């Protein structure tokens, strides 16, 4: 089995089998991490461009590490350090890249649809590292990988995502991926951040945090963008923390085995208390480790890697 597309744009159009293939492959790579030499020569001679039109530290480093461990040649391009200015379109950038004969592009862009656009005009593989609030598929996959390690099969499991769903690419990719694997997804946050139309993506909406966490097997807590406060979307950090913040008191109302995830970076004492962020119920650093493995798996599979041969290496 192989992936049906040369690109990874989002989880919306992926099949359950494809998602499972990536996760299984990521598990195999994760096993490599515990060996003294973590590098494999799979992408030797291939060039990957990390094209970041929006600042990102975590995702970019995670992708770079994944590329390095696969022995790819890497070029980093970020908008702040480039000549990209108003008047130059993404097509211009894309044509430049195509002319340089690149094998793969990892792109973050503020516009929904940007990764799809690039994928349509280029022969190279495109991995979406976040297109505005639309999708962030590798984040969705690493979240699901982390849940799978804890929960086994996700069939029938209850996952609650809390935060600014409306503006979250993480939420969208989580919803698509999780529902495809049979999980039940509940979205929670103030109504100004959780539009009712999100139910059409296959999730439930629950504004009462207590009800939203009561039966959950896992909580995925999204980062609150503090600048949205000035856009009248919520009254104050304090009130958000009081009504939707996850602290130990909230965790006492959940199932005892329910665990806590966060894509980072965290606003401690706003969406998550330090006691929870550093406590025994969180798997946040596991997510970071899995992120590298998932990205290795995606790069490997998109460049035509055979999952069977990888198992042989282990």
């Amino acid at each position, binding site marked *: 089995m192989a992936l049906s597309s040369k690109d990874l744009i989002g989880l919306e159009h992926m099949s359950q089998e494809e998602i499972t293939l990536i996760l299984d492959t990521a598990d195999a790579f994760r096993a490599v991490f515990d060996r003294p030499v973590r590098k494999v020569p799979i992408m030797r001679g291939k060039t990957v461009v990390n094209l970041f039109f929006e600042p990102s530290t975590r995702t970019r480093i995670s992708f770079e590490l994944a590329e390095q461990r696969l022995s790819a040649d890497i070029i980093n391009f970020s908008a702040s350090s480039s000549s990209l200015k108003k008047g130059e*379109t*993404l097509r211009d950038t894309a044509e430049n890249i195509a002319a340089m004969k690149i094998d793969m592009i990892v792109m973050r862009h503020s*516009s*929904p649809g940007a990764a799809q656009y690039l994928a349509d005009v280029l022969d190279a593989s495109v991995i979406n590292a976040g297109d505005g609030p639309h999708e962030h598929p590798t984040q969705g996959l690493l979240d699901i990988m982390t849940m799978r390690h804890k929960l086994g099969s996700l069939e029938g499991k209850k996952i609650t995502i809390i935060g600014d769903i409306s503006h979250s690419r993480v939420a969208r990719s989580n919803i698509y991926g999780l529902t495809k694997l049979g999980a039940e997804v509940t979205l929670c946050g103030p109504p100004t951040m959780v539009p009712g139309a999100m139910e*059409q993506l296959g999730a439930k909406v629950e504004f009462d945090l207590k009800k939203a966490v009561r039966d959950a097997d896992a909580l995925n807590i999204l980062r609150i963008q503090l600048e949205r406060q000035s856009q009248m979307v919520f009254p104050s950090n304090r009130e958000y923390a009081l009504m939707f913040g996850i602290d130990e008191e909230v965790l006492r109302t959940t199932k005892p085995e329910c665990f806590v995830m966060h894509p980072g970076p965290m606003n401690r004492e706003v969406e998550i208390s330090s006691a929870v962020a550093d406590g025994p119920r969180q798997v946040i650093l596991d997510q970071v480790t899995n992120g590298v493995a998932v990205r290795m798996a995606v790069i490997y599979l998109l460049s035509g890697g055979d999952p069977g041969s990888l198992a042989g290496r282990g």
Partner: protein
Amino acid sequence: MDWKSIPQEYLVHNVKLCLGGKLSAETGYLHVKDGKVKAIGDGKLSVENVPTFDGNGAVLSPGFIDVHVHFREPGREEKESIHTGSRAAAAGGFTSVVTMPNTLPPVDSAPMITYQFDRARESGLCRVFPTGAISKNQDGESLTEFGDMVAAGAVGFTDDGAPVMNGSLMKYALQYSKMLGIPVTCHAEDTSLAGSGVMHAGSWSAKLGLPGIPRVAEDSMIYRDCELARATGGHLHVAHISTKGAVETVRRAKADGINVTAEATPHHFTLNHSHCQTFSPMFKMNPPLREESDVEAVIAGLCDGTIDCIATDHAPHTVMEKELMFDQAPFGIIGLETALAVGITSLVKAGKLDLGKLVYLMTEAAAKIYNLPGGKLEEGTDADFVLFDPEQQWTVLADEVQSRSSNSPWLGEKLTGRVKATFMGGRNTWLDKDFS
């Protein structure tokens, strides 16, 4: 006879006349002399020594009138000029257009009106009727010189593209324009509710992660402006109506006797927000493409007279601008060259409206809004007319577009109904490539 060399006096025969909202069952004729209609009617006419042209069975109707176009001159000629816009109009069967004032700088004084008339006269392909801005520099603060602009030929006032958020300004505009007997046109959008929205707020915007423009941004402003029209007695014209709520508000306002008229665009009675899922900026316009229930409400409004006419909101943008990402690309699409075909394809062929009514909405009904000449063909009127084949199928191709821009959502689409020839004041302004 050759259509390319039209004499001062001629006859067109073998045509089906479409006048006053009715398509004639039999063939008829049109007799033109010195740019005016000398005679028109069913049956046959032969006048000695007058050359006769064969209409090949095409429909002959008054030239179309589009009361909402953006010709971009002065200032944004890379998108369109008065000449290229007029050329697109002629190719679409239009003989008169009403231009919006959001040029660079905006049309906010009498010399600007005069300038646009002069440019249109030089081009000579279409009658161009400018509107003036409501506020100086379209900044929403103080009234422009309505009287001076009307004296120069302005047919209406609008801050289209820069919605009037200040209710007092809108009230004064309606009061003042009432004295002058011309309408004030509203682009109904509460910009604080529209925010940074780029498409209709609904299931698709939630899915795509694109910021939405809710219906209430339009509904609330149309309600405000209808009440201002009630209070002042001024003539309010609602541009590009797009929501079911807005249609209902206009319907009620008309029933109450308020002096309000409305127009709808071909894209709002044909397309819905699901088209945005391709992220193609060809589906980005303002007001945005709404839901199927809104499309149905707009069609119902056209059928029952709540919506008075069809207008395209022809809004040219360069290829580069429309190659930007959806959230960054400008709003708007061109519409002049596809208006008839989209009307025939999605209204007439779909059985919603008959051809006579469609033509009426694009001619006589449109002329009434701004008290324009044209829209009728009778003895003595200007010989502004169009010949079209309502059955011919054709594919919209960027290379064949006459506008300077080609930002159309129908590129590559097959449509039914093709303009064969257009005449303004008896003069040929457009001839389809295979028409002879």
